[in-house]
């Protein structure tokens, strides 16, 4: 292998020099915080979606039979769905908050104003923090949307407006 400085003139080590390192402020934020900011809300949403659907289907559609009211259990279906939604909401907010504080800690990494940070995307740590904010916001909307459905619809709402001759 030949590197700059070995068989040709130039730098002596195969690293990008510190002046152009893509993440000069990478030591200011733990990598775990960056990943949590990015993944917290999406994971919370995924678990909320799957578990809420599973509980609803299991309690309102057992053995593929549509019920008007959920199967009676020790804990009501509504309480379970609310608990799932609250857990997802809390995790998403925590993810968003982590991403926000990561962004603050790395604000100077981009070397640009906000326009530069968004359009140019410089500063890898800042980029991950900023992405975490955007990702968390979108999934927070999704989590809130699902939570609002739990609150606004009866768990085993029937499609009474559909003719059974047509759809069954």
């Amino acid at each position, binding site marked *: *292998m030949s590197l700059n400085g070995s068989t040709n003139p130039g730098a002596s080590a195969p690293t990008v020099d510190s002046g152009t390192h893509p*993440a000069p402020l990478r030591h200011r934020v733990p990598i775990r915080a960056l990943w949590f900011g990015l993944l917290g809300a999406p994971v919370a949403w995924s678990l909320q979606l799957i578990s809420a659907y599973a509980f609803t289907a299991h309690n309102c559609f057992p053995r593929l039979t549509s019920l008007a009211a959920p199967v009676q259990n020790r804990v009501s279906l509504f309480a379970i769905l609310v608990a799932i939604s609250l857990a997802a909401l809390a995790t998403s907010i925590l993810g968003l908050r982590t991403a926000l504080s990561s962004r603050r800690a790395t604000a100077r990494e981009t070397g640009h104003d906000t326009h530069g940070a968004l359009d140019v995307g410089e500063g890898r740590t800042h980029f991950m923090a900023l992405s975490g904010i955007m990702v968390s916001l979108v999934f927070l909307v999704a989590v809130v949307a699902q939570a609002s459905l739990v609150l606004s619809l009866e768990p085993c709402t029937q499609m009474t407006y559909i003719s059974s001759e047509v759809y069954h």
Partner: protein
Amino acid sequence: MQDAAAAVPGLEAKLQQEWETPRGLRGSLSTVDHKIIGKRYLITAFLFLIVGGLEASAMRVQLARADNHLLSPEQYNQLFTVHGVTMIFLYAAPILSGFSNYLWPLMLGSRDMAFPRLNALSYWIYVGAGIMMYSSVLVGAMPNAGWFNYPPFSARTFDPGLNVDFYLLALTLLTISTTVGSANFVVSLLKTRAPGMSINRLPIIVWGTLTASMSNLLALPALTVACVFLFLDRRFGTHFFDPAGGGHPLLWQHLFWMFGHPWVYVIVLPAMGMVSDILPTFCRRPLVGYVFVACATVVTGVLGFGVWLHHMFATGIPPLGLSFFAGASIVIAIPSAVGVCSWLATIWLGRPRRTTSFLYMAGFVALFTIGGVTGVMTAAVPFDLQLTDTYFVVAHLHYVLVGINVFPVIGAVYYWFPKMTGKLMNERLGKWGFWISFVGTNLVFFPMHLLGMMGMPRRIYTYAAEMGWGPLNLLETVGAFVLVLGMLLFFINVLVSYRRGVAAGNNPWDAPTLEWATTSPPPAYNFAVIPTIASRHPLWEDRLQDSAARSTFANGLLLPDGRETVGTTVLDAQPDVVLRMPGDSFAPLALAVTLTLGFFGLLAGSTWLSAFGFAGALTSILMWLWPDAKAAERYKNTRDGALAVEGAGTQSVAWWGMVCVIVTESAFFLYMLAAYFYLAANSTNAFPTHGAPELRLVLINTLLLLSSSATLEFGKRAVNTRRSARALFGVGCTIVLGVTFLALQILEYTRKTSSPSDDAYASLFFTITGFHGLHVLVGVVMLIVVWVRMQRKHFSEAHHTAVTNVTMYWHFVDVVWLAVFTSLYLTPHLR
């Protein structure tokens, strides 16, 4: 500063000799050059587009007037099924793979993909799948149950011919091709970027293809599981989708759409990435909101996994359950709108040059908006219930697929054709082609919205005149042929420009990304000097003045000693390791051919042909993986200057490749176990009907398998500390334990009184444990290879990636067994 390449006399000639594919048949069949494979993908996918287009034209002629009997109902069924399968599976995804294969190493500043031979394998299996699908024409049994192939219509009772079998086997073959291709993209992105190309400096097409590849790894196993289950139902009398035996047809819909909706984003996200990268070139400014668009791309892919039920709104599932998925489907509008706003702002704030490529990208934005809006409409449950299975849905999906895939693809051909061939395409012919295609697309697909709302169902071969659908159908047929004319002009332009196009030069569009820094067409080795990247627009840095740092092209890593490229760290792309790349080989072709033969054997019900094919495939794999003496010698050279060679653990591409295998295989088992719980929860009878399984033998077997993880870990640690006798002992014990596990599993099968065709539980039990056993067998074969290599002293403290990888795989197989044991053996005792 002196040019680095000039310091090594004859560098370019040396690299050319090392990397160039030899001419002639031998070179053609054995090449692993990503550029050649990429172009082959493009040409093959375009051939399928032409075939799919001819099928569509025939259907449009049939529907042009009422009570038409040009095609029989059966011919029409076959045509619309094969048209859908061709366009969605054989054109839309492979065409994007073609671009990504060709462009990625050039855009990433590398000399090849991470796994060049897997790249070739992916292409050859794709060809095999296409041949298998279209060989159905020869026996007059093309797939005929629609591109999503719902049972019970596709069950043997109602569709007894080979039609559906062709579909199931060809798609299973295609999933193998797409999976290995996706793993290759993921690892290439993680490990083979030019120094300095941190994740915030990636072109959007790379984000698109990465998201699509991750989606493939997680979603494709659902299709594989569905196809395997249905094939077993049809050929071996299992009951996965048969309610009489405890199965359920809705299971197919769940599995198919768990794959199907992510797949929609697989075939659009890379194309949207093309738009995000091409528009800025012609608008003479960076993409507005790069970070937003990069995030929107990934977010769309993730949300795509949570919307599969919106294809099943009319199946009777409770409204609250449906509403969760409706909500997620509507939320997808947010990242989509981010993209549209960004593209419009880039055009608005830039100084657009109205080239043909630009027009196709602008046309995409218009068509995507229409397709996106109708997507939001169908995400609303009440609306969808009214329009399910009408032409409104056909209109929506064609706006999405033609608008978001075909238009960007053609625009991308105009854009990258000069890079691939060194010649420019004819702009005047191109603009004519665009306008004719754009008008044709809207003429053929927009009236479908109206027909859908008038109640015209999809998939009917004709209609009565009194329905009043005739005039709009005629208009659509006229539009279809206008679109065909536009496409014809495009293909003529490609052929004429290839022969007589004007010389393009290295960067005819004055574009900012790395592929334009090398010659047109690029040399076999892509870059004589590996570039060092300082920004997202390496070729526009002087103009943009975003920072003082500059990317360098003349000075950097040379790597002249063999087929080498640089491996970099995952997030910041710091030089990490020298990767030695494999050369041309016949092994990928041999594996693809034998695997395809094996699948033809399954289709024909020929045990001999299947055995021959799969034995050949196994032999090809062993030949592929078996290291030669030279390679073993090479491993002794552990450092090259400041960098490790090949490396170990996360430095190694093989380690990341194994992670991809484990991810996709985990998904495979997860879908099968999800199917078990779905059927168990919905079964109205006892599940299993013959009582809960016996636990004594399986508990011993579980203990054996778990012990084998400990012995293998012991062996691996011994390799790390150079204690070869202990290492051989540890791996040897693991092999013995693995073989004993398999023997006891067979013993358990022979003791069972039930068979896979007894009920759904038995079908699941034998299939899931069978697949797990197959994985144990593969692990044992890998362990034997490792053991032999240990004896030959192939491994050292620094180089033992194969040992690490097989250990990871073995632990994975153990964890899967715990899940299988808990689900199939323990839960029946809890019911």
